[in-house]
């Protein structure tokens, strides 16, 4: 007669959580250098993650502050469907100036030169062709919106515009070509055979650098003299800080309320959007690198733990002989890998933090890092270690004790 197993005899083996932790720490603490080398990949991965996140945040804050300093205040409006007609009304400057947030605005276009304009300072036409100087027609508002700096003289104004006066301002480069250095003697420039009095010389512009190369005349004068209705006109608007987005939506309605779709506006990207884009671009790249490093780290832990399991086969066999179940062995090996991962995550977080602060100091930036990232780093390491420990843990649990104890 055979008895059923006595429950007091066959009470299951017990491997308490605290003991499992103690055993795992004992193994890890025994070989600190090997543990660190095992964890190196994960350290790099987590370090890259923290550095990436921290630098992206720091850099985006920096982008934001710089973007505020150079806030985009430029809006351009152009013909969305050119059909040879002028899409802009005659009072474009006035309509746009009436919008809240517009500093200066006006229309401009390059006067097409059929080869007969021949800008020059003498009434007689030259015998040989010289390098043509472009002629730009610009309303006074467009001229002011380019934020010009004058070397001498003044800009023409609305009065000249309304009267289609033959007046011009010339760019610094064009002035050199024409040999004009001063306007004290009221120099003139001949376009075709019409004299234009030079009111001023532009030394520099913040926008439309073409103005430095060209002779700029009022659009009314250009329209009258050159009948350039087919010219490709463009409106330039200088806005108050922060108003560009709004003006971009209002300008077509103000200029062509009956057909705003005819006009296309070019507005600078929204600072917030740009900042987010920069952050996204930087983070996506570095997250990919961090992910790759973590993958390498996980493979390193798997590899090292597998080797460790092979090396510790007698010990694993002994533990089985002492009553450990397969589950106990799995748990211990997985726990060791997880703790290795946690250590790697913590060390990686510290290294990442140091890297962010070092870069920020070197660039005189303000280091910005989300505390949640620092807290997440050890967790990422733990998960990496746990995943990496699965295969070795299963292999260890399958180790036949009788065989290993014979070694």
């Amino acid at each position, binding site marked *: 007669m055979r008895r059923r197993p006595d429950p007091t*005899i066959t009470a299951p083996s*017990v491997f308490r959580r605290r003991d499992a932790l103690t055993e795992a720490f004992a193994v890890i603490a025994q070989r600190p250098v090997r543990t660190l080398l095992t964890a190196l990949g994960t350290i790099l991965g987590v370090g890259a993650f923290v550095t990436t996140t921290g630098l992206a945040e720091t850099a985006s804050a920096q982008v934001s502050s710089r973007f505020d300093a150079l806030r985009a205040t430029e809006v351009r409006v152009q013909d969305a469907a050119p059909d040879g007609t002028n899409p802009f009304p005659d009072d474009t400057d006035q309509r746009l100036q009436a919008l809240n947030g517009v500093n200066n605005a006006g229309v401009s276009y390059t006067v097409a030169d059929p080869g007969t304009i021949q800008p020059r300072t003498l009434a007689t036409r030259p015998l040989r062709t010289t390098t043509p100087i472009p002629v730009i027609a610009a309303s006074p508002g467009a001229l002011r919106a380019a934020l010009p700096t004058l070397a001498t003289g003044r800009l023409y104004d609305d009065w000249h515009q309304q009267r289609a006066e033959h007046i011009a301002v010339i760019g610094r480069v064009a002035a050199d070509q024409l040999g004009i250095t001063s306007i004290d003697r009221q120099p003139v420039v001949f376009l075709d055979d019409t004299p234009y009095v030079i009111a001023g010389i532009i030394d520099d512009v913040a926008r439309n650098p073409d103005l430095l190369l060209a002779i700029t005349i009022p659009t009314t004068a250009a329209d009258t003299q050159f009948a350039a209705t087919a010219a490709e006109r463009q409106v330039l608007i200088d806005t108050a800080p922060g108003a560009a987005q709004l003006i971009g939506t209002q300008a077509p309605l103000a200029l062509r309320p009956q057909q705003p779709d005819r006009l296309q506006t070019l507005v600078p990207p929204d600072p917030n959007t740009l900042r987010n884009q920069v952050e996204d671009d930087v983070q996506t790249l570095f997250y990919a690198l961090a992910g790759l490093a973590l993958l390498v780290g996980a493979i390193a832990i798997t590899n090292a733990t597998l080797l460790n399991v092979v090396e510790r086969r007698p010990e694993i066999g*002994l533990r089985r002989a*002492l009553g450990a*179940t397969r589950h106990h062995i799995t748990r211990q090996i997985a726990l060791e890998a997880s703790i290795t991962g946690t250590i790697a995550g913590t060390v990686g977080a510290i290294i990442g933090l140091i890297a962010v602060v070092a870069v920020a100091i070197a660039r005189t930036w303000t280091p910005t890092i989300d505390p949640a990232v620092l807290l997440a780093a050890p967790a990422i390491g733990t998960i990496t270690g746990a995943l990496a420990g699965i295969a070795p843990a299963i292999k260890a649990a399958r180790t036949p004790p009788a065989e290993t104890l014979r070694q």
Partner: protein
Amino acid sequence: MTAGLEPTPATDPHSAGAAIGVKSAVRDVVVVDGLTKTFPGPPAVTALHPCRFTIRAGEYVAITGASGSGKTTLLSLLGLLDTPTAGSYLLDGVDVADLDDTTRSALRARRIGFVFQAFHLVGYRTVIDNIALGLLYQGTPTRERRARARTAADQVGLGHRRHARCSTLSGGEKQRVAIARTLVRNPSLVLCDEPTGNLDTTTTRQILDLLDQLHHTGLTIVVITHDPTIAAAAQRHLTITDGHLSEIRREHATTP
């Protein structure tokens, strides 16, 4: 000279009045009947042919045999480290031949102690840690584990080296730690696989004396060895040849 092992009539599990389930003054720790182990191969190898024997509580049994004769296979089966191909094995009256791995682990944790030729100590841990390891899977609280480990260390004469790392111990000391690790578990059955195989003559004598002392405290000990001197120190002497087990009687030999 050799003899087949006839089970003691009083303890034959198949006979009326068998010791199993019956309270007797001396209980049977091991009752084996037809135990066989065949490794599937190919080619299939029968490492242990059907054998039948009983070991009573407190007995000191030596199993000898040449290398490859099947004695380690027998030890693995007795120690529940491996499962038999056929036959029955009652350990402390519990049929363990067909138990699942978890239950066999539980029995190993509470009923069986091992002493190996290679000591199988965790070298980077201290004497106390290694001895306490014997109680780890019994769920014994840490403090009690360490207290009992200290007592066991004293019993085997290693009280002064409690905190030494095992990697720094001599062979004899290592085997004492292994014996203490078994002793601390208070097992029903102690299985020793060539316990003096890596030791010099003097240390061998000391270990044998220690095993003898433990035997006199009532421990049931099975020693697997190829050394006839060790076998001579045991109460009973079984021998295994090409997987066939037989007992060598002190006075006379019988065949199964």
